[in-house]
């Protein structure tokens, strides 16, 4: 009679032990890779004004995070709220400059909205006209790009596909999927991992930034004559064994700039690269060691300058390849991003709940000084 009992008992005890032995204490969290693209918080300088994107409000989990767009019209030093109305911005906002100082904003998908409404302004955000991208924009600050000359747009999607529109944002067509790019000769050379940014070259060629699986390769792809070519900046031999990711691509005037992350963990560093011929030749900056911090925002400024903020409240800016990265004063708490100042230097946009504080620092300043406070009427619970 005890036969049916014994095996069951042993099995039960063994199961208990196996289950218990399988349980472990939680592992220490792995350090965040600096190769991840920065947040959507960024700025954009156009001929008619300077724009900045930052997230405000409450927690994303309860859908109380609302991305806001601010503008400081040219010739003024005052920022104001300019978030396009009519769509919930919980998923994020992506910006790009159009011709004549117009600006295009794209809403990233959130909750049950799977595609990206667009909005264009010609008057510094006083009025917006709607547009449509029937797909979801990727969660990178460079997901939208425009060629001011032709009016064509590029959109990097959540799927890794890139779409291109006709003039004025009409008739979107697929330019390339991530898989197709990876399968191309250029993609194979790079061992494409992810597509992270898009831009047009000054001459109107589509450019894509990417993370490469092959160490030492910077993934900037140029679409020329119906073929994708790997035109990324050649990196020095010191980076030959390091993971390389292109984090941002921006074209301003006649110059395309790329922000590149090399290495991981405490050895990671940032490099800026500039090209004026669509990526055929690049000039590389000196490296900016991250010292274990992660990149939190990257902001292109006028004349192909670039400013970055790091997770340890450090910030740095670079204006040209000949000069080094210049350390900025320790950024104020809550700084979401930097934006070019009205008279040189940089503004730091710091968020605390529904309040945006603008801090300014002149080029050689040792500290930030408070310049303006913008209170934003966030509608808590409106997206829940």
């Amino acid at each position, binding site marked *: *009679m005890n036969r049916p009992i*014994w095996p069951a008992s042993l099995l039960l005890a063994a199961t208990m032990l196996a289950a218990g032995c399988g349980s472990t204490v939680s592992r220490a969290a792995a350090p965040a890779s600096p190769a991840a693209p920065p947040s959507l918080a960024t700025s954009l300088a156009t001929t008619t004004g300077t724009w900045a994107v930052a997230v405000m409000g409450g927690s994303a989990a309860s859908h109380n995070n609302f991305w806001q767009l601010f503008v400081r019209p040219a010739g003024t030093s005052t920022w104001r709220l300019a978030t396009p109305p*009519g769509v919930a911005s919980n998923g994020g906002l992506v910006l790009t400059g159009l011709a004549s100082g117009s600006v295009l904003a794209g809403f990233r998908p959130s909750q049950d909205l799977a595609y990206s409404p667009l909005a264009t302004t010609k008057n510094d955000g006083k009025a917006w006209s709607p547009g449509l991208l029937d797909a979801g924009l990727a969660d990178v600050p460079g997901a939208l790009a425009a060629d001011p000359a032709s009016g064509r747009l590029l959109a990097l999607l959540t799927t890794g596909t890139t779409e291109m529109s006709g003039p004025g944002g009409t008739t979107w067509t697929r330019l390339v999927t991530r898989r197709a790019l990876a399968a191309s000769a250029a993609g194979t050379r790079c061992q494409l991992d992810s597509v992270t940014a898009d831009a047009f070259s000054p001459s109107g060629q589509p450019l894509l930034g990417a993370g490469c699986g092959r160490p030492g390769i910077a993934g900037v792809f140029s679409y020329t004559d119906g073929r994708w070519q790997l035109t990324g900046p050649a990196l020095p031999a010191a980076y030959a064994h390091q993971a390389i990711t292109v984090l941002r691509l921006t074209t301003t005037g006649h110059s395309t700039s790329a922000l590149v992350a090399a290495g991981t963990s405490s050895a990671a560093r940032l490099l800026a690269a500039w090209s004026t011929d669509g990526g055929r030749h690049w000039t590389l900056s000196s490296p900016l060691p991250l010292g274990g911090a992660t990149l939190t925002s990257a902001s292109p400024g006028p004349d192909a300058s670039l400013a970055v903020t790091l997770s340890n409240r450090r910030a740095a800016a670079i204006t040209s390849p000949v000069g080094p990265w210049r350390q900025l004063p320790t950024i104020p708490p809550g700084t979401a991003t930097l934006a070019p100042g009205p008279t040189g230097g940089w503004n730091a946009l710091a968020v605390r709940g529904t309040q945006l504080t603008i801090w300014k620092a002149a080029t050689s300043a040792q500290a930030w000084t408070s310049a303006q406070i913008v209170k934003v009427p966030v509608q808590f619970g409106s997206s829940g």
Partner: protein
Amino acid sequence: MNSGINVNDPTVVAAFKTALVHQGIIALLIFALLGFAWITVRAWLPAAQAGTAAGPGSLSAPAAEPSWRQLLRIGFGLLWVFDGILQAQPKMAIGLPSQVIEPAAASSPHWVQVVVNWAGTTWSYHPMQAGASAVWIQVGIGIWMLASAHGPASRLAGLASASWGLVVWVFGESFGGIFAPGLTWLFGAPGAVLIYMVAGGLIALPERTWHAPRLGRAVLAGLGVFLAGMAVLQAWPGRGFWQGLSHGQQGTLAGMTSSMAQTPQPGFLASWVGAFTTFDEAHGFAVNLFTVVVLAAIGAAFVTGQRRLVRPAVIAFTVLCLADWVLIEDFGFFGGLGTDPNSMLPFALLAVGGYLALVQAPATVAEPATAEPAAAGWRERIRPASVRRSVATASIRSVAVAGALGLIILGAAPMAAAQASPNADPILAEAIAGSTAPLNFAAKPFQLTDQHGRTVSLASLHGKVVLLTFLDPVCTSDCPLIAQEFRAAGQLLGVSDRKVELVAVVANPIYHQIAYTQAFDRQERLTQTSNWLYLTGSVPQLQQVWKDYGIAAQILPAGSMIGHPDIAYVIDQAGQVRAELNTDPGPGTVATKSSFAVLLANAARTALRSS
């Protein structure tokens, strides 16, 4: 998995109470009718008379039930009844998936969550029927076990206990959490209901096995091996049980008990558990050492099967179980939604039962041979004379068993019927949206453009029932859910959908062009829904329709979507507005979406009937 509705929702709580009261009345009627029938039959067919009809194969006097079996049968019968009563807590209908099943499965592997998720979703689709079925099935099994001491009915009761226990152990307790980290006997591993199953299996054993002392030895040995395994697990390093309070961080046991002490319960109980937590924080190592040593020693004693060792071990184990039940498990059913008194009482019952089976003297083994009614085959048993004899000689226990079976059927039948429908109970939608407001006035005419660019007027829909709502095509939350509910309602209407038109009007003054209605339709897979119309027009046209139907489409600042009410109107075939439904989708779970679809489809059917 869960419906997402507040566990205290007054609509659901009231409906659950009403369902229980109604079914309780039916349960009383079952027992009353059975009792009446029993008395009547006994009056008409006296046992003596019936006995004269007895032929070969008549039932002999049953064997005396051994004390270990009696203990298990009555003990676990009472536990099932108590568990059934706990299932009748008002919050249980909505709360079981969200507050019991989901937390239990949260730390288990994915495959466990998939299995448990299926059960949780099933429950959340039919919370009334599921909640009530758990009450009556468990009370029924309990009464069945209590009332049935002998024969096949008694063994079947054990089998029913084991079978239902398996359902509860898998789906309600996520396999007792044995695949989750942090497993410990102190807190209920391997799941209380697994012990119910073991006990049920023992009760279901044939009568010829009742009196063999090997049975008790086997039960104790099995329990001993299990306890030894639990001792090893308890001693395993890195699981936090050796730690009391270190650098302000509570060890695993102190963390568990302190959270238990914070659950709603009588103050003195909380203070007992709190005191134990303080003691464990100060002497965590010693507490765990004591636990490991005692579990191992008791386990070893049980495995030996020697009476002189087993007796003190059973006493020690019972004391340990009671102490654990009070100080660590906190009685198991206080706070949150307790479904049973946890594992310590079942463990103690099993150990004592095993001991009694071991030590019962051979002298008490009474008349084992006379218990065999084997001579009576099933053909003999169903002869009218045999049936008459059985009925006439039935005891009050038999009536109770029949009543218990009635209770089980009372619980299981409605749940089985509900399961036959893939759609959720509309009570969920009513709980979110409130009751439907009946109306009767002429619908205001409109003329707009559909998603294909065709002009559509309300007049052109004359002769059809129109479910009319207002949706923002770039809305991120409610509107997509409402659209899915409309699509599901269309599917539910089936052949009737040719007489029903599902109509939405754009509720966004900025993003209102046809490109958005088309993108929205693609997003919500409405392009293949033939009776779906998503209408738009110029802003003045839309504003007129909004005004006529009491809709305010408000542009809100700072990244908010358009504010507008979630409303649907039911317009009958004659163009009369028959009802207004609040379509705020609430949590938007699969259960609530299905429930809203049923509500909308029912509203359309009602309008079709009334036209």
